């Protein structure tokens, strides 16, 4: 989101002499982004300085909402849970997605069949996934009780740590197919000649993976990680249906905290302040990942090819 306008205008100016400016091509997307992204965001920023119950009149309240949100011990807890979900789901998803992506990149037919199966979770809505898993994990009527498997009939969603683990597992289950798809595309872009050269030099499959595939996937990893990290900030539907933030507040992530504050406790001011915090954290993380990913467009990974 932050890069699109800049990137577009750069292309525009460099090619302006030959084909005429193409900056206008970004206008529809920009207009859409302003109308449905920037304007509501400014509205939320404005609301965070007011007192409003969502029904009556809006009263200006200065920094009251910010003060109450920043003083609330629930905020650091929600941030902590959000980062836990983010880090663990990244740590589970990235290796799994890379391996599956590399596996599916080959063009054998049986891998194509497996690919179709792997992508099934992508077709399901988060709410449906949550309802299904909730039924499966039910300690009394779920999978464990039905199959009489003791280790499966844990109180999955009723113990703090197990519930967090269940959330991370289900999130990963849902999104690994998507990221595998990204990695599959990334692997297929790697020039065949690199592997041929490596084979001539006597490199085995594993060596090829570490020395060619992984480095070549650098930008794919950055892109996929950005999606995972920023996306995990907004996990709401799945957690809301699965645990509603419980047990207690063990899985109460920032987005859920925002919803509860705004729409259940009728405190739109503090909820807006949480929303602004969410946006700032998301922006900071996206910028950080871009920085870590490093390199401008001038860096080439294909030198000598």
């Amino acid at each position, binding site marked *: 989101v932050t890069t699109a306008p800049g990137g577009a205008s750069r292309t525009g100016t460099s090619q302006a002499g030959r084909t005429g400016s193409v900056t206008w091509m970004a206008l529809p997307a920009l207009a859409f982004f302003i109308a449905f992204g920037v304007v509501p965001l400014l509205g939320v920023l404005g609301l965070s300085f007011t007192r409003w119950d969502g*029904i009556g*009149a809006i009263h200006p309240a200065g920094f009251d909402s910010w003060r109450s949100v920043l003083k609330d011990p629930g905020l650091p807890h929600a941030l902590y849970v959000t980062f836990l979900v983010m880090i663990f789901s990244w740590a589970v998803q990235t290796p799994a997605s890379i391996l599956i992506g590399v596996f599916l990149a080959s063009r054998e037919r049986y891998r194509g069949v497996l690919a179709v199966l792997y992508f099934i979770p992508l077709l399901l809505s988060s709410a449906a996934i949550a309802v299904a898993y909730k039924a499966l994990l*039910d300690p*009394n009527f779920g999978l464990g009780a039905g199959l009489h498997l003791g280790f499966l009939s844990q*109180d999955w969603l*009723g113990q703090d740590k197990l519930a967090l683990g269940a959330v991370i597992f289900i999130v990963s289950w849902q999104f690994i197919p998507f990221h595998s798809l990204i990695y599959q595309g990334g692997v297929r872009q790697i020039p065949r000649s690199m592997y041929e050269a490596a084979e001539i030099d006597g490199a085995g499959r594993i060596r090829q993976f570490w020395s060619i595939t992984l480095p070549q996937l650098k930008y794919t990893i950055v892109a996929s990680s950005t999606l995972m990290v920023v996306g995990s900030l907004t996990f709401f539907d799945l957690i809301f*249906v699965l645990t*509603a933030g419980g047990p207690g507040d063990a899985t109460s992530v920032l987005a859920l905290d925002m919803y509860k504050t705004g729409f259940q*406790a009728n405190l739109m001011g503090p909820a807006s302040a949480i929303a602004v915090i969410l946006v700032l954290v998301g922006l900071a993380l996206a910028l950080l990942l871009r920085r870590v990913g490093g390199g401008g467009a001038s860096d080439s990974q294909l030198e000598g090819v």
Partner: protein
Amino acid sequence: MTTSRRTFLRITLAAGAGVGLAACGGTSGPKSSGAATGSATYWYLTGPPGEGIRTDTVKRFNAANPKTQITATTFQNDAYKTKVKTAIGAGQAPTIIWGWGGGGLKSYVDANQVEDLTGWFAQNSAVKDRLFPSSFGAATVGGKIYAMPCETVQPIVLYYNKTAFEKVGAQPPQSWGDIMDLVPKFNAKNIAPFSLGGQSRWTNMMWLEFLFDRIGGPGVFQAVFDGEKNAWSNPAAIQALTEMQKLIKANGFIKGFSSITADSNADQALLYTGKAAMMLHGSWTYGSMATQGGDFVSGGHLGYMNFPPVDGGKGDPSDTVGNPGQYLSISAKATAAEKATAKKFFATAVLSDAENKEWIGAGAIPIVKGTDSLLAGSKDEAWLKFVYGTASGAKVFAQSWDQALSPTAAEVLLDNIAKLFQLSISPQQYADNMNKVIGT
């Protein structure tokens, strides 16, 4: 807090509300069509048996009043709570607003969004006088009546599975001490003493409502409601919270209770399948256990009683808590013709004899005086008489806490109750957290 709640529609409907509101922006909204003719709109909840009965009442009214039709729209319980609030805030409320009264109604009143019905009830005293007087408490804000009580009285009841009691050779509890004694007996037979849909949070709250009343009397929570400083630190309150955690620590509740939702009726299933021996729940669950529980209800395996006294407690054992009624308000933004239609609906269609019969047929007691004479011969006669007796015989019929308090205080309450049941905070921490939001 009625009938079955299912979670998975929540999000889709909440999202739909947002889209719907965006689509309405800048136009005159749904009201324009009805303004000229006096046709009104009415939103209410889905789910049997209430949905069918509400729909029948609207149909009867529409058949009798072909020129002033009421258009009904139905919503799933939890989605409705968010949707109606958003619609009222956006000035797009239906003419007739279905609700639970209490703190939620007060927030509408504070925003001048609902019509004051005090004068109308004074002129139409016949409408008022036929209803249970106790039902008007939650319709009254600052001495004025803002809603028409409707539908049924729903006390919270202690249900038990007679088969489970036979298995351990025990008798239903007569006191809190009996309850604590029963816990190890059931656990020894691998039957959970109590079923509980703890993820829904208000299900846990019902336990505290009774313990507070039985130990300290109705004054303990009344002090909270009245905004008295540090009201949650009352020794009776601390004792009730401590007893609550004792029961949890003794494994009084089904394993995994904190991940079970009442929306899915899984808590009721635990009782009628015999996996749990007892359950504290609203009287509205009788109907769903009768339809879903096989021969559990019809075969006489379901027992029920009022919550037993606590030894040495101050509360009257006849006291009960729950929903003293449901409530219909009129949007202040509606046109005069729409308001007239709504009032005619209140006076002629709501709780008509035909509607009352349907409620009784569904195992519920409408909030109309003298319906006990209609109970004889009903297939659920014993149950209906029990509910009627509990509701009419209660010295104090307290409204559910989360409905009585403001939505803001209710959210903090439910959050802290969930943590109390998770044993992640102590009774003292609970009281401290709750004292901070008294009067908000």
